[in-house]
């Protein structure tokens, strides 16, 4: 056991002390911050000033209403989306339209609206005047409300920058609401009723049984954890591989084996390197947390609420997922002689994690099906699938413990196999191992 700790200590200290580790640890959060803050800043820069608009009201009665809608920006869509925003962690699924929407919300698009009165001029004259003002950058654009707007007339938005989708959308929905309101009032419905009637519905989800809802936030966290496992395995798997191969390349293996058994040696390597990974991830997590708290304190965004027990599950299954896949790298490392070779061999196994992602879409819909059960017992899927089940319809505790037990057994079993392959492989130096041969080694020796 003391020798095992000697190995753990060496692997840990030798790695943590490297310049590479220090630089990567510092650069990590900076890069993360750069990727999240810079785009936001770029959108922010654009909206340096308010968008100045002129409205030409040919109906003679719509200006007030439209101007109010544009300035207040009380679009029901925008409103509900803003509320949902904190539920989306940085690692949530992003499709491009989603991103555009969110980016649009980031733009602090305030509007300054003025009415362009005809004042006995012809419409063309006014238009010409407005065009000139847009040209000279007094205005960003102007809106023309045609006389037949309330029936089927099509309003026009003329602007310097017609590619600005967000402004266009804001204006479009503002006009729509104004028109809808005016139509209702003209149909004899009280203004207050109209206001009341246009309020949107906010669906509240409560878990049956009256328990506190874990909310959609949890789902995003499950996928976040999955993604985190995937990324850390890709990042640190190479380290595990390198650590296992190191003694082969430096020809130290034989000295080590003359001092200790191969199993504690391999375990020591896995744990040592993993502690390095966890140290780095821990530092990053703290940085991220500190940043989020800071960001949350400065705005009205509320951090998602996650029950503490769920948080424990997240951590436990993250560790299980990480170790299972890191172990795969150890097994591969025991078979090969160069890291490049090893990376290629390990990748197909790591892709099983992706299969776990796909399975989880099915499991969300029926979290208690036999498929869900077996998928959450299979150690290579469990880190994601079991978490999905816990978040949706928490399975009985024995199932959770069983899946964790299987996970631990898998890690230990694979390490035992890796230790065997490593030792026999060393005794047969110069021979390149084929899979059947490796299998023979495992049974032999």
């Amino acid at each position, binding site marked *: 056991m*003391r020798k095992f700790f*000697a190995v753990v200590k*060496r692997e840990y200290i030798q790695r943590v002390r490297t310049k590479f580790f220090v630089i990567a640890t510092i650069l990590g959060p900076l890069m993360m911050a750069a990727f999240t803050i810079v785009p936001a800043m770029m959108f922010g820069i654009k909206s340096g000033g308010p968008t100045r608009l002129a409205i030409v009201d040919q109906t003679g009665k719509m200006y007030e209403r439209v101007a109010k809608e544009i300035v207040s920006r009380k679009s029901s869509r925008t409103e509900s989306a803003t509320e949902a925003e904190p539920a989306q962690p940085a690692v949530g699924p992003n499709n491009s339209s989603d991103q555009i929407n969110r980016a649009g919300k980031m733009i602090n698009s305030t509007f300054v609206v003025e009415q362009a009165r005809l004042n006995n001029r012809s419409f063309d004259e006014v238009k010409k005047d407005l065009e000139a003002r847009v040209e000279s950058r007094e205005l960003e654009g102007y809106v023309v409300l045609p006389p037949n707007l309330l029936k089927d007339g099509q309003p026009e938005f003329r602007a310097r920058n017609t590619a600005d989708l967000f402004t266009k959308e804001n204006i479009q929905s503002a006009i729509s609401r104004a028109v809808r309101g005016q139509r209702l009032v003209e149909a004899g419905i009280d203004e207050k009723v109209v206001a009341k009637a246009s309020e949107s519905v906010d669906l509240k989800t409560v878990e049956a049984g009256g328990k506190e809802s874990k909310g959609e936030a949890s789902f995003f966290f499950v996928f976040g954890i999955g993604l985190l496992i995937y990324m850390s395995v890709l990042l640190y798997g190479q380290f595990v591989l390198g650590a296992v191969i190191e003694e082969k390349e*430096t*020809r130290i293996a*034989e000295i080590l084996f003359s001092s200790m058994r191969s199993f504690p040696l391999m375990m020591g390597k896995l744990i040592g390197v993993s502690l390095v990974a966890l140290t780095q991830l821990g530092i990053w997590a703290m940085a991220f947390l500190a940043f989020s708290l800071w960001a949350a304190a400065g705005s009205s965004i509320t951090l998602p609420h996650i029950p503490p027990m769920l948080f424990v599950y997240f951590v436990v299954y993250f560790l299980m997922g990480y170790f299972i896949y890191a172990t795969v790298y150890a097994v591969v490392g025991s078979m090969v002689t160069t890291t490049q070779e090893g990376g290629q061999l390990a990748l197909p196994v790591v892709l099983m994690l992706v299969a776990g992602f796909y399975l989880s879409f099915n499991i969300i819909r029926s979290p208690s099906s036999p498929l869900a059960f077996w998928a959450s017992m299979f150690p290579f899927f469990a880190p994601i699938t079991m978490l999905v089940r816990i978040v949706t319809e928490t399975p009985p505790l024995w199932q959770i413990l069983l899946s964790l037990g299987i996970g631990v057994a898998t890690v230990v079993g694979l390490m035992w196999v890796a230790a065997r392959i490593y030792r026999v492989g060393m*005794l047969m130096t110069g021979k390149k191992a084929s899979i059947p041969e490796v299998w023979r080694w495992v049974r032999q020796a």
Partner: protein
Amino acid sequence: MEETKPTLVLERVTKRFGGFTAVSDLSLQVRPGRVFGLIGPNGAGKTTTIRMIVNITAPDSGRIELFGQQMNTALQDRIGYLPEERGLYKKMKVGEQLRFFAELKDLRGQEADKRVNDWLKKLELSAWKDKRAKELSKGMQQKVQFITAVIHNPDLVILDEPFSGLDPVNVDLMKQTILEQKAAGKTIILSTHQMEIAEKLCDDVCMINRAHKVLDGRLREIRRSFSRNAVALQFAGGDGLLNDSSLVANVRQHDEEFEVLMAPGASPQALLKRLVDSGAMVTKFELVEPTLHDIFIEKVREAE
């Protein structure tokens, strides 16, 4: 001192890899406080034998007993092993590296630090303690590797081809260090294919070839039993003397020197007397014991 009890006993040990027999039915005994030479050509099974002794691999059949106990992991700490395939952690500092290897032998704390410093000083490496291994020359690395084998003060030191890749100065240093270890009461197993070195250092030898033991025993006795009654000779004058077939069976001449194999029953003493009587000027007269190399070749030929 239990002088009679052997440090290491191998009894009919056999090891196979697939269809290949690396060591076959090997029995040997290593006595305490002696330098034991395991000699034979490359691929004879020396390294496999050693790996079984240090418990890296187990024999398929046979028994290995060390310090009077059946081989087990706890005994590993009492062995110091310098493998033929040896290296260092390239990026690790020399001092830390030795510390780590000491810990693997269950030696730690201040005692470990002290030993590291002592050994570095002894092998003139103190200035390199905080250098990374890759900054050291080959010879220096070899010395550091040697320290890893002896740092924990083991009772049995096993050195597999310790001289390969060393320059003459370091070969001497290594020889001297081995003899110091012997003087300190350690048992040393020296595996080598360089028989001249074995001849100079070993008290006992075991020769193996193609997985089988060829012969073993005390080096002196082996050489005596193989003595062919030969003389190395340099002289001037006394012409024709070497042609006397009652005295001389065979003569080989290299440069000034004659290698004379005495005729059966003739004594080298008689030859010397005849030479002196004949007025020859004798500049060298030496009884030649057969080299290990000669003995090995002869035994292998016998066996085939």
